[in-house]
């Protein structure tokens, strides 16, 4: 056993830190750690990363991938999150990019991959529907073939950052008569400026409007925007959702929030001195601390296992436990901020600092972690079936 990074890996990590801290503007990182990232921040940081070959390291090499070892990939996401950099847009880099690279036509690869890596195209994920959430295969949006086009009708919802979307990858029903509901679905690429597309924002529990719903009324998209084979969309979607789950544990982000929280607690007064001296607070902090250590050690074990070429089934566990830890930290941060933290939005300067002032909003917002990306109950189902055989 060995917990020491090899000199080569340490050098690799230091190189990452140089770019993350030296090349990404500080105000971009600051807004990101406060949960106030703007569209421009995401575009800026992804383009800087792309310039340094760090936006899409896990893609195939010819499209910008780096062929890293699992350890290097682990260091990459951990350091990125720790540095408080907006994540490269997941819809682009973890979802549609790898799908196009794997299953797309040569023409689609040329047209979309470089633009997707550089965030010249902002992608949105059009999977969920009002009647198809956890049971995604029950979706009803149809794509009827009409000559050189598919005609799209239906509704998509919960589309994250869809307000900025240029294109959407849509899962739609191309064969309504297929015997099983998982069959007869296709994976389509839709230009969101096509006539017949309507988008509406949905306001969330924290007052933000990061998700949207989309309505399709006889939207015509060319058949060349079909990815892979018609009616094989479900298998591509599953491939994609597997990618989505990786990194959703966000251990690096938790480590950063932990550091911020501990620092804030040394400044925050209570009746009996700084909060950092309060035994109850310290006990709660210790519970999170040990969980984060256990999670990182688990992540390292998973990394090591995949280094031997075996995929580990433990990634569902990382999603489950990692999101719970992050949610618990957000609760602790809100409690630590007290009434200052109850402000969803304020112009008033607060002695407890900006992070305290957004802690309730962040707490509320992060409830989403256990719902999306395959809800935590769905992950339990996966573990029960694939690992425990129940």
């Amino acid at each position: 056993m060995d917990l020491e990074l090899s000199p080569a890996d340490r050098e690799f990590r230091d190189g990452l830190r140089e770019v993350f801290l030296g090349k990404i503007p500080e105000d971009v990182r600051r807004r990101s750690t406060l949960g106030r990232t703007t569209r421009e921040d995401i575009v800026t940081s992804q383009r800087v990363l792309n310039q340094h070959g760090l936006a899409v390291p896990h893609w195939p090499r010819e499209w910008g991938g780096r062929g890293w070892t699992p350890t290097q990939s682990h260091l990459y996401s951990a350091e990125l999150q720790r540095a408080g950099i907006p994540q490269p847009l997941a819809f682009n880099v973890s979802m549609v990019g790898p799908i196009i690279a794997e299953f797309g036509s040569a023409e689609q690869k040329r047209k979309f991959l470089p633009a997707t890596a550089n965030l010249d195209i902002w992608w949105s994920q059009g999977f969920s529907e009002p009647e198809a959430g956890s049971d995604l295969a029950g979706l009803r949006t149809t794509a009827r073939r009409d000559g050189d086009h598919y005609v799209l009708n239906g509704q998509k919802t919960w589309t994250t950052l869809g307000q900025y979307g240029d294109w959407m990858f849509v899962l739609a029903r191309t064969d309504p008569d297929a015997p099983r509901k998982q069959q007869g679905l296709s994976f389509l690429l839709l230009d969101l400026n096509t006539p017949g597309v309507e988008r509406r924002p949905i306001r969330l529990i924290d007052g933000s409007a990061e998700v949207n719903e989309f309505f399709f009324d006889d939207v015509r998209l060319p058949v060349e925007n079909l990815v892979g084979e018609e009616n094989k969309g479900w298998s591509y979607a599953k491939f994609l959702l597997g990618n989505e789950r990786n990194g959703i544990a966000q251990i690096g982000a938790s480590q950063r929030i932990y550091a911020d929280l501990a620092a804030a607690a040394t400044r925050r007064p209570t009746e009996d001195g700084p909060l950092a001296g309060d035994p109850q607070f310290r006990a709660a902090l210790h519970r999170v601390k040990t969980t984060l250590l256990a999670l990182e050690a688990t992540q390292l074990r998973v990394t090591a296992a995949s280094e031997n070429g075996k995929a580990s089934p433990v990634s569902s566990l990382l999603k489950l436990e990692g999101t719970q830890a992050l949610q618990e930290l957000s609760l602790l941060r809100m409690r630590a901020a007290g009434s200052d933290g109850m402000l969803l939005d304020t112009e008033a300067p607060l002695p407890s600092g900006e992070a305290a002032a957004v802690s309730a909003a962040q707490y509320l917002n992060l409830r989403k972690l256990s719902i999306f990306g395959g809800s935590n109950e769905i992950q339990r189902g996966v573990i029960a079936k694939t690992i425990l055989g129940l």
Partner: protein
Amino acid sequence: MNLEFTDDQRLLFETVDQAVGRGYPAGGRAAATGSELGWSDQVWQTLGELGLTGLTVSADHDGAGAGPVEVYTSLAAMGKHAAAEPLLDGVYLPSWLIAELGTAEQAGQLLPQLAAGSTTIAVAHAEPGRPWGLAPATTAAADGSLTGVKSPVRNADQADRFLVTAVDETGRTGVYLVEATAGGITRADGRAADWGHTSQVEFAGTPAARLGDGAADAALRMAFSRARVAITAEAIGLMEAGLAMTVEYLKTRKQFGVPLATFQALVHRAVDVYSRVELARSMALWATAVIEAHDNGGAVDLPGTADDAFVFVADVATAVAEEIVQLHGGIGMTYESDVAHHAARLIAITESFGGVSSARRRAIASEALLVAPSALLGNATSAAP
């Protein structure tokens, strides 16, 4: 960077697993702890033949001089069968104290015997009603004789000798070697919550020999820290087996005409047991790797690591013990069921070597609490903005 076993270490696990498994069929722990000895003599012989009793003893003293990973693998395999042989409390822990504190003569006499498995030594530190972390109330007179009460002392009824902590006339804590047959010893035997043998031992002017002549505080802290990490491995083995029994039970036990595994509420609880155990395993392996780094000269906080790992694993062990009994229903409440013994042993582990409350107290008082944690050595100072 790697938290996996080598092939040799994996082989060690399998060997111990098979050997102990043969001696522990269903009902094994109940039979072993119910015997005069308190464990299985046949399994003890086998452990000796396999060299496990010599694992922590250096080659100079006829041992294997193995590291913390071998300790982990052997104890995880013992835990899997809820085996009661006193490898940790009767051999490993005393061997660490003797190697650290003892004179060359003491080490030369005692370590080869421990390594051969021909003797066990009970470490007597806890005192009734007294916090673990305080200096003992037991005193050592100028002539070395001891007076005081120690309890609980595990497997004291079979030990040939005791290592007793006591404070001398100058206020220094020392560790004293006492022959079990020495005068002035009164023993009251009983059972622990896990049915392991345990005693209250009273010393009244009992002749004793001090281990070495330096202060013992640092050596005690290190040895107990090692023991806390070692016992997390046993807990992992127990939890892994407890989970497997529970999963099997859910598949086979029928109620309302269907297997229990049909009920999602139960399945999800089993999954939570699995995921907590998996995290606990990572924590135990991580702490083991930190000890290994320490033994290789790394600048690591061994006691702090041991407290963090012990607290985490003990909390998980408590939850798992409760869940595996609950999911077995009434049968899990019976002395006859193995799952009950696994659960009881897990609970006993949470109170070992000072227990989870005192470990948590130290951990939350530590300055290290306010530093963002990282399992990677030297990575804690982060790139945070």
